[in-house]
């Protein structure tokens, strides 16, 4: 039993990602979409908070949103996995529920 958490807002402007990271459990997955993809940038003020959960929680980033924003995959936190919309669908079906951190 595990949960897919989706976050869609920049963690530099909004605390949704922080709250999500504070509530997700070992074995859960976090998918960053829309403006939340900035949360996967390495070297940012948010990076250490994200990395701190990466052992227990899998981190995915929606590829289309990364490219839209000009973020090269090489700039991501190590272990953050880009996925397409098809990968998004797989994550939804592979986990028992989806929780959107709006």
């Amino acid at each position, binding site marked *: 039993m*595990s949960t897919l958490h989706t976050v869609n807002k920049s963690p530099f402007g909004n605390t*949704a990602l922080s*709250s999500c990271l504070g509530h997700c*459990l070992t074995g859960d997955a976090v998918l960053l979409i829309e403006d939340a993809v900035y949360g996967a940038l390495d070297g940012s003020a948010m990076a250490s908070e994200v990395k701190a959960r990466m052992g227990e929680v899998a981190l995915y980033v929606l590829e289309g949103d990364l490219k839209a924003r000009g973020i090269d995959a090489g700039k991501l936190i190590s272990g953050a996995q880009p996925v397409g919309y098809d990968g998004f669908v797989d994550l939804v079906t592979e986990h028992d*529920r*989806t*929780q959107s951190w*709006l």
Partner: protein
Amino acid sequence: MSDTKKFLYVNRKPPYGTIYALESLEVVLIGAAFEQDVSLAFLDDGVFQLTRGQNTDAIGVKNFSPTFRALGDYEVTKLYVERESLEARGLSEGDLQEITYEDEDDDWEEKPSIRVVSRAEMAKIMADQDVVLSF
């Protein structure tokens, strides 16, 4: 397996600045007719929805906070409030409305609907649901 699912309504936004809190409550009221296993979670700024003494006269927006007290009549009796969220906002349980329900399994005794839980407990409650609706 029964037809009953566990529904969690997650409230993370404060009231009045946006409509999400009010429209979340409208879903809860309609949803009560479906006899599912319903819980409400209040965390982050969502805890502000439950403060006592709300008076919206000056801003011209409808005060919907009394509706929370009617939830017991709809058999919505589990309102989980996160302690860490209260503390970060300088609030304690005493700043919240009293919301109660009459327990039909216990001679209709009046019991509190609000259950203050830790962040770790809230995370487990979230992980124990079939359907999570976020507002």
